């Protein structure tokens, strides 16, 4: 270094480079192995696996209590109960001739979900279009917090509101025979589903490149034409994910349907009659069931079905959406 007429800055650079080369040669780029670091990392890893482990545990232990039913050893006071009993047309597990038909429950869940999604999906999607394209700034500032507040309402509160206000309102306005029915429960349920569909759909629309919107305007399309025929189709993966997530929530919701659907396991196609959903059945009957009884096993079996259903919906939403989004944005 002495005697070299380098400008000031250069000299520092040279010595730093020389030290870095030296350092790299000593370490070969590896960090030193420290035992306590290793232990800490591995203990954190095991705790992190808790979430993964519990998914498997949930599957195992919910399934476990349903096994007697599946392998045919479940019994009630009157004899054996098997999966065949699930195909009966009535659900009357507590009676002189117990019936364990799941059909009324499945139909009940489907009816309520149908009403909920039929109302929540269009309303939420249109509201998402409104905030992403048409709304003035002040409207956005009100709607987004409102949606967050709605998302934060405990489902008991929505159920209570449905039981006290909505039920009377619908009975009065529509002249209904039954105050608590699938329709009322479904509309109440939609209040819980709307925030989910809105949030996911609005996200999907907002990540679309701005150039798409601008190109459409430049070619002469109006705001509404752009949002309906350009943006919405382009956001299809996200909108579909919103549909699936909302569907999953609607199908599995318990408190709202417990309070607002009338809790009668009727098997009928009418929307204005009381229903019993699968989740409500578990919620209402599990507390009073005899441990180890066929009724107990059946309730767990319903739980297994619910778990499988929401798991598949989630898996489809994740895989399908990620796939579609990767394809679309890598082109």
């Amino acid at each position, binding site marked *: 270094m002495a005697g070299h007429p380098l400008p000031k800055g250069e000299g520092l650079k040279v010595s730093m480079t020389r030290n870095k080369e030296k350092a790299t040669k000593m370490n070969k780029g590896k960090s030193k192995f420290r035992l306590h670091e290793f232990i800490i990392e591995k203990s954190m890893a095991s705790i992190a696996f*808790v979430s993964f482990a519990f998914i498997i545990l*949930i599957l195992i232990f919910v399934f476990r209590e349903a096994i007697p039913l599946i392998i045919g050893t479940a019994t009630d006071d009157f004899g054996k109960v098997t999966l065949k009993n699930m195909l009966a047309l009535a659900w009357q597990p507590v009676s002189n001739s117990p019936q364990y038909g799941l059909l009324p429950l499945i139909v009940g869940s489907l009816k309520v979900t149908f009403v909920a999604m039929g109302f929540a999906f269009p309303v939420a999607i249109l509201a998402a279009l409104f905030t992403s394209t048409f709304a003035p700034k002040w409207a956005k500032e009100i709607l987004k917090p409102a949606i967050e507040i709605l998302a934060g309402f405990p489902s008991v*509160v929505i159920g*209570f509101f449905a039981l*006290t206000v909505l039920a009377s309102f619908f009975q009065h306005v529509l002249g209904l025979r039954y105050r608590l029915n699938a329709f009322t429960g479904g509309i109440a349920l939609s209040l819980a589903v709307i925030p989910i569909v809105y949030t996911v759909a609005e996200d999907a629309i907002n990540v679309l490149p701005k150039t798409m919107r601008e190109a459409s305007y430049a070619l002469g399309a109006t705001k509404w034409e752009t949002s309906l025929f350009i943006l919405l189709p382009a956001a299809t993966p996200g909108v579909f994910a919103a549909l699936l997530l909302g569907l999953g929530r609607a199908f599995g919701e318990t408190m709202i349907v417990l309070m607002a659907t009338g809790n009668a396991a009727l098997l009928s196609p009418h929307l204005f009659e009381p229903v019993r959903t699968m989740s409500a059945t578990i919620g209402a009957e599990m507390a009073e069931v005899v441990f180890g009884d066929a009724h107990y096993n059946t309730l767990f079996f319903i739980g297994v079905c619910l*778990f499988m259903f929401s798991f598949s919906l989630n898996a489809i939403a994740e895989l399908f959406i990620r796939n579609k989004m990767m394809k679309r944005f890598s082109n």
Partner: protein
Amino acid sequence: MKLSKKVLGMGIISLSGFCAFLIIGAVIFIMANVIIGGHSVISWKFLTCNPTEGMTQGGIFPAIVGTFFLVLIMSLIGVPVGTITAIYLAEYVKQESWIAKSIRFAVNTLAGIPAIVFGLFGLGFFIQFIGANMDKAFSGQGNLVWGKPSILWASLTMALLTLPVVIVSVEEAIKAVPRELREASLALGATKWETILRIVLPNSVTGILTGAILAVSRGAGEVAPILFTGAAYFLPDIPTKLSDQFMELGYHVYIMATQSTNVDSTAGIQYATTLVLLLLTFILNFSAIYLRFWMRKRSFQ
């Protein structure tokens, strides 16, 4: 522009605007309804006294205490586990590795499981498996201490339910810590764990707090998981040990509104309990939102 096209356009815009304001209206209406129905019943006495006359009068103090203990135990277990998982996900694993993918998949799946299934799991695993085996080992012949619904099992069930919320919030906060801070720390000779403990974590405390608050808000509001893992409608005492059952605000509303013997005359109490629960949820959610806002503001300085 053709008139019919213009009309159609205006129709669509008004329809979507109507939907947006329908949502806002529903929120306001629900809040107003609960406030109007319940505000006259709320008083200091209501919040601090026990129910009397077979639940038709008096206060909801035990329900408030029960809810408090439920979320307390839930947070004591759930927040550390969730934080450690988030730290591990954000700091220690390569983002594309199968470990990261499987943990994330598990978290997303947990988030999508219906609440009632968590209740079933609480019954089938915590009560019937762990509780029953604990009884076999500790509680003497035939004694049912842990193998029945109690606040411990309900809290653990809730901790599992709210785990995804905590993990997502904490991970968001950890990722927000600027890379340069970590690199500077490592360059000065700190180990990875020292960096996390002394640099990353103190800077993500807001995020951890946000996650905890959101989890508590969810835990106080969900009733389905505690329907048969620990909640009860009328108990003579507040819970004093982990194997006791407990009263809870949301559960109280549900039972009182659907199954109590005089649903009509207790309407005021029902509204007031709902109002208390709603206020609690609001305060929690707003503090979480405010914390998040403050966190973002700070990181932009």
